[in-house]
């Protein structure tokens, strides 16, 4: 019974995190933050769900395999995030807005990145 609860908790939290990363993707103002959202939140979400899967399938071989999947996702998704972030950074160089010194300043500064239909 505890296993059921644990699995459902893990699943819910994991999917919530993935959802949040999706939301972040939509809400954030420029590409750099979006890659930030992608890299962190979704990795953690997926790992939690995989942990839930390990618990759900209780034979140990598949557990090991899922652990392999987990390491793989832990390895690749941040790397992808890093790549995109680096690309954005290299492309924009100086034109990125400074970290918001004052609340006022960041509100009015529109996304400096040219939008692309």
């Amino acid at each position, binding site marked *: 019974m505890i296993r059921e609860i644990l699995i459902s908790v893990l699943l819910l939290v994991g999917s919530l995190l993935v959802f949040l990363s999706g939301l972040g993707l939509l809400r954030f103002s420029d590409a750099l933050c979006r890659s930030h959202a992608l890299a962190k939140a979704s990795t953690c979400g997926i790992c939690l769900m995989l942990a839930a899967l390990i618990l759900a399938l209780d034979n140990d071989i598949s557990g090991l395999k899922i652990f392999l999947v987990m390491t793989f996702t832990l390895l690749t998704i941040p*790397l992808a995030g890093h*790549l995109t972030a680096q690309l954005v950074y290299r492309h924009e160089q100086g034109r990125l807005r400074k970290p918001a010194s004052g609340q006022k300043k960041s509100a009015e500064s529109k996304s400096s990145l040219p939008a692309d239909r």
Partner: protein
Amino acid sequence: MKATTDSFLVRALIGLVFLLVNIVSVYLLLRGHNLPGGGFIGGLMTGMSFILLGLVRGWEELQRELPVPPLRLASFGLLLAMITGTAPMLFGRQFLTQYQLHLDYVPLIGEVHIGTPLLFDIGVFLLVSCITVKLVIVLARST
């Protein structure tokens, strides 16, 4: 696609990813007969891993690193598949009859069940992976 990403992080980790993917692809190949997997899938995964390597490290370097020219390996794969097909004809059986062998006390692994379809699958594996690699390398270097 001449210069690739010059970020050190990706260059370092790609080796690990390459290794992981190839382990899984060989695993998929070997268990192909009973569980989802098989020659095509394994071959494609290995091909993808090489593409990944090429993307990150650059195609010329990949071309140099390849231990054996891919087309030769591909034709060897085809030859292997052909041999497993024609060998039974030597013993008077029909073309492409498959033999199964069931070993019980293999020292390390325990009970093993291998057969000529596995050889056939390995042939397919070699062919598919080498073809993907060769095509992508030539396509990339011809830009």
